[in-house]
C-alpha cells in the first residue's frame, strides 16, 4: 500500500486499513476516489463524529472477519415479485423484469451529492462494483405500479452495494428491501429521484447479528407533487444505522417516514432521518416507535430543516416514542427542528417510558402470561409506525410479534 493511501484516514484501525486496501484494489475512477475521500474524512464514524455519538461503527467494527452466523431468513420475498440480490460477490440481474422497468449496469461510478454528510453511504458507493459493474441504475417509467424486492445479504466480510432509482414523471414503485446481514460490514446506498407526480412506497426490513455492522443509507429527492411513504422495521445488529436523507425540492411534495425498532441484548438499532424542505408547501409526516430490552440500545435522530424563503407553508410533524421494556435498556433521541421560515406548521413529540403497569395487570388477570402480555401491548404500541406498509404491514407485524413473543 502506498504511503498516500495509508494516510487517507487519520490513525486508521485495522478494519479501516482493510477498507483502504479494498478501495485500492478496485479499478481507478475519479468519482470513486472522490467518494472514498468523502468517507476517509471521518473513516468509520464513531463517538467523535457529529451525528454518530450513540452509534459507534469505529469501535464496533474492529476487524472485517466474516461473522459466524448465516444471513437471516427473508420474510418479504414473494414469488410474484422480481428480486434483485446484492451479496459480497456483486448482484444478479434477473432475466424477466416487470413492464416499465429498465436496468442499467454501469461501469462508471456515479457522483453522489452530499457524500460528506453520509460517510457510510459514501463508503458503499466507493466500494461497490468489482465483479459486477459499479452502479446499478433502475429506471421506472409511468404505467402500472411496479413491484420490486431487493435483498442484501452475506456471507462475506464486506457487502457494499449501490442502487440508483429514477422514477419518471407519474411512475409508481413499490419497493421492499431486506437487509439480512451475514457480513462483518454491510453498507448499502439506495438513491431515489422522484420526478413530478411520481410515487414511492418503500419498506425496509433490517436484521443482523451481534457481530455484524450494518448501514443502510437512502437519499431521496422529490420533484413537484411527488409522494413517498417509507416504513422501516429494524431489529438492529451490533451496530445498525438506517439513515434517510430526503429533499423536497419542488412544491407540493409529500413524504411519510415511519419506522419501528426492536432491539434485544447486545444489539443496537439507529433510525436517523434528515429532511430538507427546499420548496414551499411540502408535507412531511414522521412516526418512529421503538422497544428495547435489557442490554439493547435504540437511537432516534430526526432533523427537519426549513429554509427561510424556500420553506414557506411547510407542514411537518415528527414523533418518536420508545418503550424501555426492561431495566438496562437504553434509548437515545435527538429530535431537531431547524426552522428559518415564518409561515410553517411544525410539530414534534418525543417520549420514552415503560409499559403501563395497570394494563399489564389487566392482561395477566385474564390469564395472559407476562411475556405474552408485554408482547401484545408492545405490538399495539408500534403498530402505528407500520401502517404505511400496505400489503406488507401484516408481514412486518407478524415478524415484530414473533420477536416479542420469543426473543423478548
Amino acid at each position: 500500500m502506498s504511503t498516500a493511501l495509508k494516510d487517507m484516514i487519520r490513525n486508521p484501525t485495522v478494519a479501516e486499513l482493510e477498507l483502504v486496501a479494498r478501495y485500492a484494489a478496485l479499478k481507478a475512477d475519479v468519482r470513486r476516489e472522490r467518494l472514498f475521500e468523502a468517507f476517509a474524512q471521518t473513516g468509520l464514524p464513531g463517538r467523535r463524529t457529529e451525528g454518530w455519538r450513540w452509534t459507534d461503527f469505529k469501535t464496533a467494527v474492529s476487524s472485517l472477519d466474516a461473522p459466524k452466523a448465516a444471513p437471516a431468513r427473508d420474510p418479504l420475498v414473494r414469488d410474484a415479485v422480481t428480486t434483485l440480490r446484492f451479496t459480497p460477490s456483486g448482484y444478479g440481474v434477473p432475466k424477466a423484469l416487470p413492464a416499465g422497468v429498465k436496468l442499467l449496469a454501469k461501469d462508471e461510478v456515479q457522483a453522489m451529492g452530499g457524500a460528506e454528510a453520509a460517510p457510510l453511504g459514501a463508503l458503499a458507493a466507493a466500494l461497490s462494483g468489482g465483479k459486477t459493474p459499479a452502479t446499478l441504475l433502475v429506471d421506472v417509467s409511468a404505467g402500472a405500479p411496479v413491484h420490486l424486492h431487493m435483498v442484501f445479504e452475506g456471507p462475506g466480510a464486506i457487502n457494499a452495494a449501490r442502487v440508483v432509482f429514477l422514477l419518471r414523471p407519474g411512475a409508481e414503485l413499490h419497493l421492499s428491501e431486506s437487509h439480512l446481514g451475514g457480513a462483518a460490514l454491510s453498507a448499502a446506498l439506495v438513491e431515489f429521484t422522484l420526478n413530478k407526480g411520481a410515487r414511492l412506497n418503500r419498506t425496509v426490513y433490517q436484521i443482523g447479528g451481534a457481530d455484524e455492522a450494518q448501514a443502510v443509507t437512502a437519499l431521496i429527492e422529490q420533484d413537484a407533487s411527488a409522494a413517498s411513504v417509507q416504513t422501516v422495521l429494524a431489529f438492529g445488529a451490533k451496530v445498525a444505522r438506517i439513515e434517510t436523507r430526503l429533499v423536497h425540492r419542488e412544491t407540493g411534495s409529500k413524504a411519510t417516514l415511519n419506522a419501528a425498532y426492536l432491539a434485544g441484548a447486545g444489539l443496537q438499532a439507529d433510525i436517523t432521518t434528515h429532511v430538507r424542505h427546499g420548496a414551499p408547501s411540502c408535507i412531511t409526516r414522521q412516526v418512529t416507535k421503538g422497544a428495547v430490552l435489557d442490554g439493547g440500545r435504540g437511537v432516534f435522530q430526526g432533523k427537519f430543516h426549513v429554509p427561510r424563503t424556500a420553506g414557506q407553508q411547510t407542514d411537518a410533524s415528527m414523533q418518536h416514542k420508545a418503550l424501555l421494556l426492561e431495566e438496562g435498556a437504553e434509548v437515545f433521541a435527538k429530535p431537531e427542528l431547524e426552522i428559518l421560515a415564518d409561515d410553517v406548521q411544525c410539530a414534534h413529540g418525543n417520549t420514552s417510558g415503560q409499559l403501563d403497569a395497570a394494563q399489564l395487570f389487566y392482561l395477566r388477570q385474564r390469564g395472559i402470561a407476562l411475556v405474552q402480555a408485554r408482547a401484545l401491548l408492545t405490538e399495539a404500541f408500534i403498530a402505528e409506525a407500520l401502517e404505511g406498509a400496505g400489503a406488507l404491514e401484516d408481514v412486518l407485524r407478524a415478524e415484530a410479534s414473533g420477536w416479542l413473543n420469543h426473543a423478548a
Partner: protein
Amino acid sequence: MASMLKIEKLSASVGEGEEAKAILHGLSLSVPAGEVHAIMGPNGAGKSTLSYVLTGREGYTVTGGTATLDGADILALEPEARAAAGLFLSFQYPVEIPGVPVMTFVRTAMNAQRKSRGEAEISAPDFIKKSREIAKVLSLDPEMLKRPVNVGFSGGEKKRLEIYQMMILEPRFMVLDETDSGLDIDALRTVAEGVNALRAPGRGMLVITHYQRLLDYIKPDKVHVLAKGRIIKTGGPDLAHRLEAEGYDGVLAEAV
C-alpha cells in the same frame, strides 16, 4: 359444605419500604362452592385492596395469613396462574388497552388459560359463535367487540364488557369489585342477569359493593361487613338492608 375460597387472618399492605401502608388486618372469610357472598363496607375499609391481593396485583404485599382456592395456596402464584386456576376479577375501573381489539384480547386470554391447563385451543369459529351469543345476552353491539379494549367505551359499556369476559372465560371463582358503580338501572339489571346466569353449584362469587342496590338483583347467600381491614360482622341478606337503613355507623359501633 367445603369452602371454595378460604381466607384466613390475611394481612396486607400497599406500597413499598417506608411508604408501605397496612390495609388488611387479619381478615378471615370463606365462601363455599355454589354460594354468592357480598362484602360491604365504608370507603377506605380495604375492599379493593382485598380484590387486588387475591388476584396478585403488583404493589400489594401480603404480610400475614393465607388464601386458598379449593385448598390450594393462591398467594404464591403469578397473576396469570391465579387466572388459569379459575380466579376472575371484574375490575372497578376496567383498563383501556389501545390497539388491542376486544376479540383478540379475549381469545388470547382464553387460549392462554386453556394452554396452561393443558387443554386444546378454541377454534376461531367456535369462539366467534360463543362471543356472539354472550354479546346478545348482554345487549352488547358486536361492532364494539372489534374495537380496542375499553377505548372510548362509556362507564356502563366497560362494566358490561367485564361481564362479557367473565361469561366467556367461565371462571370458577369470581370477584366483582363495585360492578354497580357507574351503572344506570337498566344496565344494572342486564349486568346482574349475566352474573346470575353464571351461578352454579361448582362456582363461587364474592360481590364487593358499597350499596345494597346491587344485591336486590344479585341475591347473596351471606353478607360480610368489612371495616378497618377486617370482617367485623357476617349475616344473611337482611344485613344488607339493615346497613342501607341504618348506615355503617350503627353496625360499626355495635361491633366494637
